[in-house]
């Protein structure tokens, strides 16, 4: 529970960037006032109205800034809802602090699908494409292999043997997922209750759906799992882990060298001590800003 020492901080982070709209201040009429001091009251109302006006302008500006980056490059509206719902089941907002929603995991996933990751940019993509772990005999080209194809584990570099890129892989996976929800749950994934969603994801892990023709359910679960947690724990520069909520939870301090905020420790102290020291996390952007003369 170390990450959430004060309610104020938690509230701030919880509302974070996605909830900039929440900055809107209530109308001046609701501001409690001392009765009986009419002229002062009028003046205060006028002042407050001015302040509220300014605050609303600022909030609107912030809101529109947020909206400008909180769009989608690859996921369509249905996919957004599904990815967001999966991410929120995997990393819920709860008593231990913000989750996937506040971290902007869905935006991280979307950006990844739009980048090298989604394009398989540096992957080896020559054919043929043969599923691993097949029992023999199998014939490829004009060669017969009595022993089938070698078995690989989920995260091995040889596990991915598909002729399409990861953007397509996700599209296919999300569409199979949608179909399975309709077939077996009679409703879209996002509309299931929390238990239903959890059970659904366990179905994927257990390879229960039979309508997945590649990626397979467990493979897709694993891929989604890695991206969702990646969006919670990677540097915020990739669009997730907003306000470093994932680092607040895990106690990772990013680029803090022990004294970034004047904490008075150092790397050589940290590496030899046997009790941990909590440090405020520092993101790449913050580090770079400091290095180039900013604060």
């Amino acid at each position, binding site marked *: *529970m*170390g990450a959430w020492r004060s309610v104020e901080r938690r509230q701030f982070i919880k509302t974070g960037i996605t909830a900039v709209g929440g900055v809107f201040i209530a109308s001046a009429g609701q501001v409690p006032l001392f009765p009986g001091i009419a002229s002062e009251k009028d003046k205060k109302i006028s002042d407050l109205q001015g302040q509220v006006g300014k605050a609303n302008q600022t909030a609107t500006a912030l809101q529109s800034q947020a909206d400008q980056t909180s769009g989608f490059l690859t996921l369509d509206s249905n996919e957004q809802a599904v990815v967001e719902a999966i991410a929120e*089941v995997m990393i819920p907002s709860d008593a*231990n602090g913000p989750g996937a929603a506040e971290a902007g995991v869905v935006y991280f996933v979307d950006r990844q699908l739009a980048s*090298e*990751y989604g394009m398989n*940019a*540096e*992957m*080896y*993509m*020559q054919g043929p494409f*043969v599923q691993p772990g097949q029992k*023999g005999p199998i014939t*490829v*080209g004009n*060669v017969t*292999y*009595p022993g*089938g*194809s*070698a078995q*690989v*584990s*989920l*995260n*091995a*570099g*040889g596990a*991915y043997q598909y002729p399409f890129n990861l953007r397509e892989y996700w599209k296919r996976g999300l569409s199979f997922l949608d179909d399975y929800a309709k077939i077996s749950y009679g409703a879209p994934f996002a509309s299931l209750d929390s238990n239903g969603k*959890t059970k659904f994801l366990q179905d994927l*892990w257990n390879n229960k759906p039979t309508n997945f023709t590649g990626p397979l359910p467990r493979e897709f*679960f694993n891929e989604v799992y*890695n991206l969702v*947690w*990646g969006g919670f*724990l*990677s*540097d915020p*520069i990739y669009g997730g882990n907003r306000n470093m909520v994932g*680092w607040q939870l*895990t*106690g*990772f*301090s990013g*680029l803090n*060298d022990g004294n970034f905020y004047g904490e008075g420790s150092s*790397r*050589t*102290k*940290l*590496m*030899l*001590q*046997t*009790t941990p020291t*909590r440090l405020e996390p520092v993101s*790449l952007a913050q*580090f*770079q800003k400091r290095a180039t003369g900013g604060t």
Partner: protein
Amino acid sequence: MSAVVHPQVDVAIIGAGLTGGSLAAVMTTAGYTVACIEKGPYRNFTDWDMTKYDEWMVLNFRKFDHPLSLWSFSLRNNPDQYANPIRRYTGVQTGGTMGHGVGGASQHWAGGLGRISPWAYKPYTNTVQKYGSSVLPSNHDLIDWPFEYSDVVAYMEEWEQEGGVSGDNQDPFTPGAKYPLPPHPPTPLAELFRDTTESMGYHPRSAVSGIASQPYVNQFGVQVNSCVYCGWCGGPCNYHCQVGAKFTSAFRSIPAALKTGNLDLRVNSIVYRIDLDGTGKKATGVRYYDERGNVNVQPAKAVFNAAYSINVVRLLLLSGIGTPYDHATKTGSVGRGLTETSAPSATSASGTIDMGGNRYPAGNASGGGYTIEDFADDNFDHNGLNFIGGANISVGGYLGSAPGQLTLTSAGPNNFGSAYKATLIDAMLPTKRQVTIRPSGPAIPTSDSFEDLDPHYVDAFGDPILRITDDFSTNENPAADYIAPLASNILTKMGFTDVKVNPVSLGNQHKDRQSAHIRGGARLGADRANSVFNKWMQSWDVENLFAAGECLVPFGDNTSQGTHALGFQSYIAADGIKKYLQSPGPLA
């Protein structure tokens, strides 16, 4: 399209990694002209600034490593199987992780070092003399190095000087080791391990590291910076040094060679053939694609194949040099005799101690710990045992990990949701430390582990990729089964709690990745029937072709941590090439 033909040089070097860089430095400072052709860019250490601590792209997607879109390798466990290619980096060590650019694979190296012990230069002879051959796996293909420890100590010292290797000088199992820099400061856990093992009669020594513990000037006049303990190379040991403290050719040998004016370093250029003359017994130079895809020819009096381990072998096969290993007849030598320093998934010992710390951001990837070699190599009696070699036991290195590692291989039906999330609270700030010791013995090269050209897959230019056929031998598990309980004793004596031996039985392992320290395939040896290079690192088949790399190492000893077994080869090869250029012909 006609090729661009460059003027002849004395030596053409394929690759500017650790071995290519050392040879370039030695030859150019001796006045020879060298062209070094490197497939990736030249990034100096200052280029890593601002990109550090980026686990997602640097570790998981390895944006500074070899793009697999150029080529990959395929992997299977036995010759009856089809081999699927490794298609992507996932953050889990895919193995055979090739470097890209000056520095090569040493750019993403942890810096772990340690000399090969005298016994491990003659593992076959020493084993058979002392225990008979029946202790070896029935399908073993084990051979000795073609020289002794004492023959090569001077070369090893030169290489250690080049790097500014940090370590202490009291290792009883590698006599005469005198490292130029002192070890990195030990952690309290390492000190406890040292004191405990000493009291048990063992012989602890500081971790030997390729990361400089102090500022240093090497024999070529290159100023080496000291480690700043930023922890960046830690994590899962795959990040690049941003201050130049880590021993890589980019910050040691290549700057020295460039300073002489005798080195023509060509980056972003991919060698795809070693050209031979009409007799097939002499190389005329190398052929490569420059960054625009144009074919270039670099004529040379001698060629030094210093590519990454598996790429050395692949270039030999693509160039028609030597006799490819034929699994059916067990003849031929190119691609033969794969081995590794260890197998990852055998029986282990683990325990927990009340010594925590920040899992980030401090230390480095190879210092801080202590090691005992009392259960390594032949440092204990193997009579009555069913394995050879053993394992180092190392404890107390600096903590190093990045947060994504917490979840990377955790996908499972219950590892999500609020309960799982709660397990991650302060996971980077542990108050206790769990230690797992994996003491698996060396993989013995067998007649069933080999490399050849894949019949189905090609690279971006249409040439076949390398296929690796490899599985664990029967040596690793018995070694781990024997040593793990001994390791658990040490943990108990140190005050660990929850000490356990975690058994893994043979057959429950699954080899779906390759160690980055893959050895063999182009072995050194005394017999050309089962080796590719002689003791001067000279090809048996093409007399002006020399090489260095982990693929030349015939045995997966326990002590060298991989890299120590390859670095000094360049210093032997440099002597060999000088001898050859003075008097061409096979060297005796």
